[in-house]
């Protein structure tokens, strides 16, 4: 295990996990002097009946009947300000965010406004503008993938001014994250598959990208093993409570790993593909992950090889010669995507050309690849990628990922 010349690691979130973890929230709030939380979520989560489960678990020891269930899929400054007013008008003293990335971002935005009495959220944007703890924030993720329950960033969009405000501070970390199997039990198989692969991409990239450190490594190794073992099982058998809990824990471990070591080419190209074509982030991650490994293999083969044991177990590890282990990891990830494709009846795309929109039209036509390759140059994730990337490199990887063919590694410019 390598010790970098310098590293930082932080995850101050209290993690509570179990099949009945939600029931711990009242005690945890009372310990922190809070008894009237504002519950925020989105229509999808509420419609799936998850808020009913949360409300039942909260019982009557705290007053949690104020529920805002209209957080949009894309965070919105107007919603943040409106919900902050709701919080103040009702003298709330904590926030419970139930949902995915947008709900978490919105909750963090509300928390800045109500804790700092901020009129203008913009004054707190950037890194390090917050100087003191905010109100208690409880994060209840409803997918096992994003890791946003343990990240210290938030993005809020000002749709009127066409501005995207980014916030980064350890004070944005939720105080508590609740990982409860009931929150993901009804997630459809193809969403389970892609969100799970999102978590896998966090763990794998965290393990081989440049800012890795011993603690991010330990979290990533554990996550990779758990995801590889449990993801196909829960996609096949959505009612598998143990598997659901394991995936929630693994996604959280992966979230801790990547938010402390950063990510590389896979996220770089994935963000660009998502923004140009509007395709789900997790699907981009699943498709691009083997290519990120292949692109960096000449620099990080020894490191990547260490992923084989947690993924495949002792027999496969011992049967694979040391110099072939990294390549074996790549083929196992590809195999996992194949399995998920088969289990979901083809809904889990294996390559970019297989991604379809609701009408069944291709979401990523081949002729947009140059646009994606160019957009990726503006994304910061490439900084932490072991091998340098430029426009041609991006395009080469995207074309291979579009076709679903392994990368021709002889074409990778070795820096």
């Amino acid at each position, binding site marked *: *295990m390598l*010790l*970098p*010349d*310098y*590293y*930082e*690691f*932080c*995850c*101050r*979130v*209290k*993690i*509570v*996990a*179990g*099949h*009945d*973890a939600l*029931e*711990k929230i009242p005690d945890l709030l009372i*310990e*922190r*002097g809070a008894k009237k939380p504002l519950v925020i979520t989105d229509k999808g989560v509420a419609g799936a009946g998850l808020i009913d489960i949360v409300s039942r678990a909260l019982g009557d020891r705290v007053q949690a009947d104020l529920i805002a269930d209209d957080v949009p899929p894309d965070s919105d400054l107007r919603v943040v300000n409106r919900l902050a007013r709701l919080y103040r008008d009702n003298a709330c003293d904590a926030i419970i965010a139930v949902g995915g990335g947008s709900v978490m971002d919105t909750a963090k935005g509300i928390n800045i406004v109500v804790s700092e009495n901020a009129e203008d959220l913009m004054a707190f944007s950037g890194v*390090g503008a917050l*100087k*003191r*703890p905010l109100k208690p924030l409880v994060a209840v993720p409803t997918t096992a993938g994003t890791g946003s329950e343990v990240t210290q960033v938030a993005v809020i969009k000002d749709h009127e001014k066409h501005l995207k405000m980014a916030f980064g*501070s*350890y004070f944005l970390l939720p105080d508590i994250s609740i990982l409860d199997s009931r929150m993901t039990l009804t997630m459809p198989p193809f969403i389970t598959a892609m969100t799970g692969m999102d978590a896998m991409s966090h763990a794998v990239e965290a393990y081989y990208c440049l800012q890795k*450190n*011993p*603690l991010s*490594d*330990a*979290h990533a*190794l*554990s996550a990779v093993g*758990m995801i590889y073992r449990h993801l196909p099982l829960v996609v096949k058998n959505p009612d598998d409570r*143990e598997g659901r*809990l*394991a995936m929630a*824990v*693994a996604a*959280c*471990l992966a979230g*801790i790993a990547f938010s402390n070591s950063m990510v590389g080419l896979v996220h770089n190209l994935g963000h660009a593909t998502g923004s140009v074509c509007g395709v789900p982030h997790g699907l981009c991650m699943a498709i691009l992950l083997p290519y990120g490994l292949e692109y960096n293999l000449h620099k990080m083969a020894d490191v990547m090889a*260490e992923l084989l*044991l947690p993924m495949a177990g*002792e027999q496969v*590890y*011992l049967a694979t010669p040391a110099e072939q282990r990294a390549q074996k990891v790549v083929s196992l990830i590809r195999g996992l995507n194949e399995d998920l494709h088969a289990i979901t009846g083809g809904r889990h795309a294996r390559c970019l050309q297989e991604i379809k929109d609701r009408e069944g039209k291709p979401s990523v036509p081949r002729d947009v690849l140059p646009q994606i390759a160019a957009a990726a140059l503006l994304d910061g994730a490439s900084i932490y990628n072991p091998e340098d990337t430029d426009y041609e490199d991006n395009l080469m990887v995207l074309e291979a990922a579009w076709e679903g063919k392994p990368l021709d590694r002889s074409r990778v410019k070795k820096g």
Partner: protein
Amino acid sequence: MNSAAVFDFTCPVKTNSGNKALEHLPVELAGLNAVNPLIVANARAVGPKAVRTLMNAFGDSKMTLGLFEGVTEAADLGVVDHLKNICLEKKYDAFIALGGGKAADVAKVLNLAVSLKTPDARQLSPKTPVRKRLLPLVVVPTAGADGLETSGFAHLNRMIFSSEFLAPGLAVLDSRLARARKGILMAATGLAALGRAVESHVSADRNPFQKAYSFAAVRFVRENLPAAVADPGNKKAALAVLNAAAMSGCAFSNAASGRLHKLGQVFYELLGIPQGVIMGMCLSRVLEDGFREGSCDPAALLQPLAGDDAFARTPAGKRAEAALALLNRFLEELRGALGKDLPKSLSEAGVSGYRKEEILDVLGKDEDGHYLRGVVEGMAGGKRERKG
């Protein structure tokens, strides 16, 4: 993962580790809204150079620094009360504990007293409710740290204060402060880290978050302690051991207080013997007994101790024995390298029969007292007493 019950995990400590890590302190403190920190140190233990290195790191940051370097091993709540009055008068808004042991204990309880504005800190006890975040606390462990610096525990006046709010918000592990003057100091730090990390890693109710810390700590000790002991000037190895100590404290804070910890702590509190020295003496026995009783799972140690290849080659049913054998060999090699500097028994550590009785009396009050007393008796002359 034990998913039968709800588990929780917290590590409030941020880690900054490496070259010139101390130089980041002004920015870190400013980010916590602190401008007037008080350094709490045992200058005799850490030496004047460490104090100078820490103070110089603030350069032209314009922060006002307070310094109390008079913490001794005998420090108690009276010292905390005295310091609390000074802090309230001088409006210190953050604390930096330099070095391990009592300096960290005093800083944690002082933070409690100042944050709660306790009228008389001598009245503080483990029953004092801690329900809110305290002022920023930074620990800067040096060689000789015991790992408890990063934990939510503080030992003072023979009382154990415990709360996640007592844990520091930041641990700064700086290469310049990691090196020890003697190999035995490094060994004591590494063995205390190993003892606590092992105890956390093999416990039946461990969870994956806790395991991440204990795994990394055990592996770092195994890979770096021999080099750090052989050459106390080896900065990289010493820093890795200090990292292991910090990680072990985080894992330990989330585990039930184990036998090794209790034994290490009682000898340190009563006789001032470094915890790692005691843990090194009884580590094998406590693990073997736990394995026999079915209360711990040493097989989990094989991967961090032996590495991936050896772990994979060992059949599952033989991993516990293999891990125990490896651990014994590791300890023997350490003893071989340090010779008489690392005592193998209480008599070699200079513990008289009278002092041993004192230890036995204290342990007798523990719920696990019968067992712990048996271990101490077995350590007396360096010979193992086998049961059954």
